[in-house]
């Protein structure tokens, strides 16, 4: 009887551990989707910069706006401790202000790019585009677990 109780307690504990500690927060899948949308849009713009595809100001503006919108949404999807089953590193919450600042800078770069493209300022866009890769790296380097 006592050993059964003990087993039950252990099982209960394990269940809590599984759901409470190791389970993936719903925000994880949501932010992964947002970041995939960001990557998809950047992946559309990069070949234009490499002259592998022709410049189309309206299309590029839309893609840059997709980056800004999804980054803004993703920023709100990092509740404290949501690093289980995720590449998010605990450093995000240890240095939250730095993380939020890096996110804001990336949004700012993307918004600026969207405006340049909307004004069909191809030269300006090309000159500013490297800032986006740098802004992405500024978050991925300290805050994302390597594969």
């Amino acid at each position, binding site marked *: 009887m006592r050993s059964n109780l003990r087993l039950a307690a252990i099982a209960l504990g394990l269940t809590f551990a599984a759901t409470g500690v190791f389970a993936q927060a719903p925000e994880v899948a949501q932010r992964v989707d947002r970041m995939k949308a*960001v*990557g*998809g*849009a*950047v*992946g*559309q*713009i*990069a070949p234009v*910069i*490499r*002259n*592998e595809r022709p410049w189309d100001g309206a299309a590029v503006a839309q893609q840059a706006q997709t980056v800004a919108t999804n980054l803004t949404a993703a920023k709100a999807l990092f509740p404290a401790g949501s690093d289980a089953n995720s590449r998010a590193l605990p*450093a995000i919450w240890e240095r939250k202000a730095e993380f939020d600042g890096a996110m804001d800078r990336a949004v700012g770069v993307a918004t600026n790019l969207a405006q340049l493209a909307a004004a069909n300022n191809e030269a300006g866009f090309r000159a500013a585009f*490297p800032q*986006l*890769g*740098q802004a*992405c*790296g*500024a*978050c*991925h*380097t*300290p*805050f*994302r*677990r*390597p*594969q």
Partner: protein
Amino acid sequence: MDATARDVHNRKMTRTPIVAAVAAFFVFAAGAAQAQDAKRGEYIFAAAGCAGCHTDTANNGQLLAGGRALKTPFGNFYGPNITAHPEAGIGKWSDADFIAALRQGRRPDGAHYFPVFPYTSFTKMTDADMRDLKAYIFSLPVSDRRNKPHDIGFPFNLRPLQFGWKLLFFTPGAFKPDPAKSAEVNRGAYLTQALGHCAECHTPRNQLGGLRTDMMYAGDLNHAGQGTKVPNITPHPTTGIGSWTPGVYEDLLATGLTQDGDSVGGDMGEVVANSTSKLTPQDRAAMIAYLRQLPPIDHRVRGGN
């Protein structure tokens, strides 16, 4: 004053300013040369990525003051202070000491370095680049931060054993250009091998920590025993990066952007920020030319490299 005395006096009068001017010129020239060396050294410093392991960036550590933990299968190493502080750093080192460290993996007291310090790559640097690098490091602010002892288990903690490791896995000597290859490819080889020390992470290691020379740049499935994957950067069409156009390489090295719109993070993010983004476009093009002519090796590290 008789004629002879006046002559001597005149000669002295004219000579003194000349001597002073000549002396001033040498002092100026030496200072200018030193400044010039340090300026060249700053570029070598970026290309060689010294800041990464010797700076505890995660804890806002001072540049080159050391303390960063480097996890390996043999234990944890802590990057040492290499600022020019005379006691805590390398301030007492001569040029010869500095060159012996990089070329031979040898400490000024004769002890062997552990190969976590990639002297195995830096050995290929030219003497001139090593001297300029030292000039730059010695121009930076010093730190009195004491080194943290490495946390490694027996018997790997025995430095004399490193002598055997060197016999097995280390070939000292400066880079020798391959006359069969273009000047650009040779420059790229120097940047990739000697300075960038790219093979140290992108090549798998054997059980004793030596690079597997049959798998150069073919990627590592379990980097530093930490379970992380380092991609195959040979031009293999499916398991390497043979499908990349030169522009994709350039985007990655210049800004960290990948072909699929992601951006590199972690260690490679640091390499881009500290190193490859600071190279001239010509030097990046040389690295790309070198990487693209490597023998392709079929080694799948992860899906869709």
